[in-house]
């Protein structure tokens, strides 16, 4: 019952928002629903429900290990949204608020999907729902970004549907009854037709990998994150990509049960490393601090993919990284949104000296830089350390070297951009536009909260979280 509420409450909230009259009061629905969702998901985290084996949806160990992180991120973003939408009072926020709530509901459904078809429908729905969020700004550049997002994302989602069909056919070929829950597919195990499983894996990796933003299917990401409002970027980077990642984890478990786990792991490792390399190279070149966040996201999706390829210990580390990356990235997106608002440009050719103009946001931005590049004692340091340890434990020494080199270059690239924005003396035009932006508590507290959470996650990782990640890894790698 409680797990259905995770989906139903935001969806009902979305309907209410669509009919709510006051433009000034409507944004408050976001934190209200966000808080309810947060309370529910943490209640479920502490007291997990019993999920029926054949259930199509449920708050199982995998959902339990990641969904509260999405909920936490959404709550911080929803508080920020109230301030943000007040600043954007020149346009109606009806669609924005309703769609944002719908996205939360669909994300909850996607994380809890235990059935191939349900998972696909939820992911597809999230993809489409994000469209109005992306072109909220209504500029030609936002349209361009949305068009590319739709074409690339639409092709990706089509490929994942094809992959789902192939997996279904693999089951049918092996005498399956047409039950497409992950439990039933895993139970079929070696009876699944191996060629079809492999075809399905390639297609699903390409499809859900596009949603995650793994290179070379990441091309929509810089455009979308560059043009969308900061909160949308934060929720896409911390929530939507997470659904795709859990989808890959669940599919990987089926492929493992079919006896092709080694091949799946090798492809995950390769695509993860490739994503890190591509991201590091682009980070060294980009001159736009919002696009920089997109490439950083590509890098971290690579880390997740590498973690997923390294067995139970790696999956544990990857789930930890979902939390630490999502929260840290949220802090970066929201603080950069403040800077973008104040400076009226996202290019480092035009923006500098923001430490003077928006001191608090700049401080969070710099601290976020150190957090996301894995400086202790923030969360990402510990999660990436665990990924490294898992890689060393399984003897992937070359991968470790590439991993570390990419982290180093990513640090160069990120710090180059961040300090260009923060340091120096601001240009007169920036000073003039920054006068219209006041760093209110509503604009600074949410990113500060997210950064604080990232720190807290690093310093005192709660036992209940560790236990949930262990349980999820155990569900994905069942011991016979």
């Amino acid at each position: 019952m409680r797990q259905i509420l995770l989906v139903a409450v935001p969806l009902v909230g979305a309907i209410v928002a669509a009919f709510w009259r006051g433009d000034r009061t409507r944004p408050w629905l976001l934190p209200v629903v966000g808080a309810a969702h947060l309370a529910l998901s943490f209640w479920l985290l502490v007291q997990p429900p019993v999920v029926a084996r054949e259930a199509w949806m449920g708050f199982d160990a995998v959902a339990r290990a990641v969904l509260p992180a999405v909920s936490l991120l959404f709550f911080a973003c929803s508080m920020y949204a109230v301030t943000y939408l007040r600043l954007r009072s020149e346009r109606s926020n009806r669609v924005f608020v309703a769609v944002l709530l719908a996205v939360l509901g669909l994300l909850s459904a996607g994380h809890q999907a235990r059935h191939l078809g349900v998972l696909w429908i939820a992911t597809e729905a999230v993809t489409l729902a994000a469209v109005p969020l992306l072109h909220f700004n209504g500029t030609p550049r936002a349209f361009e970004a949305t068009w590319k997002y739709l074409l690339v994302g639409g092709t990706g989602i089509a490929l994942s549907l094809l992959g789902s069909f192939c997996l279904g056919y693999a089951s049918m070929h092996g005498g399956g009854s047409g039950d497409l829950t992950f439990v039933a597919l895993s139970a079929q195990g070696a009876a699944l037709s191996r060629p079809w499983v492999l075809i399905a894996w390639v297609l699903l990796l390409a499809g859900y990998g596009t949603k995650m933003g793994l290179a070379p299917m990441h091309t929509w990401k810089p455009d979308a994150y560059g043009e969308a409002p900061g909160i949308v970027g934060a929720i896409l980077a911390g929530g939507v990509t997470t659904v795709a990642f859990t989808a890959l984890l669940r599919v990987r478990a089926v492929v493992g049960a079919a006896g092709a786990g080694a091949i799946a792991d090798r492809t995950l490792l390769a695509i993860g490393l490739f994503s890190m390399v591509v991201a590091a190279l682009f980070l060294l070149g980009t001159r736009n601090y919002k696009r920089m966040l997109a490439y950083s996201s590509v890098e971290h999706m690579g880390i997740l993919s590498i973690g997923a390829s390294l067995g139970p210990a790696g999956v544990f580390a990857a789930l930890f990284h979902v939390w630490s990356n999502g929260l840290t990235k949220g802090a970066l997106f929201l603080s950069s949104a403040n800077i973008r608002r104040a400076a009226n440009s996202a290019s480092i050719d035009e923006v500098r000296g923001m430490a003077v103009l928006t001191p608090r946001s700049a401080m969070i931005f710099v601290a976020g830089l150190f957090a996301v590049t894995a400086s202790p004692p923030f969360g990402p340091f510990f999660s990436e350390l665990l990924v490294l340890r898992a890689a060393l434990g399984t003897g992937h020494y070359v991968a470790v070297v590439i991993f570390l080199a990419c982290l180093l270059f990513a640090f160069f690239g990120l710090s180059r951009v961040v300090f260009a924005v923060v340091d120096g003396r601001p240009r007169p035009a920036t000073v003039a536009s920054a006068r219209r932006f006041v760093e209110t508590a509503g604009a600074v507290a949410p990113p500060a909260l997210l950064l604080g959470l990232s720190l807290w996650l690093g310093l005192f990782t709660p036992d209940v979280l560790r236990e949930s990640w262990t349980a999820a890894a155990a569900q994905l790698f069942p011991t016979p």
Partner: protein
Amino acid sequence: MRDLNLLIGLAMGLNLVALGSSRLPSIIRATALQGVLLGIMPLLLEHDIGWQVVAVAVATAIGKGVVIPGLLQRAMRAAHIEREIEPFIGFVPSLLLGAGGTIAALAVARSLPLLPEHAKSLLVPGALASMLTGFVLLIGRVKAISQVCGYLIFENGIYLFGLLLIGSTPLLVEAGVLLDLTVGIFVIGIIVDRIQRAFDSLDTRKLTVLRE
């Protein structure tokens, strides 16, 4: 099975029509006709036709054959664009790619391990050929409407493949697919509309502001 293969063969022929024509109305018409053909197929495939199969058939035929082409035609009229000029991949090369792809699809499908009841059907080669056609249109054309048609034909290919499973999987999957597809194209249609207002042409080559 013979009737079904005939329809699939027709659909594969329509792929080539879409690849070879430069006029947008004929591409849209080819796509629409293919949609209607796809709608009829589940009726031929199932021996005991339940209401669910009929629902899938009707929804597919109406969605792919009427609603979406109608939207596309409206977008086309609004933008006063009738022709695809200077595509990235020319019409003759596209046709050659399509024809070669169709032959390759037949060969590849033969090497795939299929269940005995599917071995003689053209579903898998038809699916592969349509996906290839869609892909060529998607990357080879510059007008947004042709690209949307390409995406539709790509989806049609996936639908053809899905027909292999229509007997065994719950129809929920099929229905969800249909709904999402329609919504997806609908959204793309809106976007096309917006693009046209923002750029006054449906030329996706002009979408090049965002780059490194």
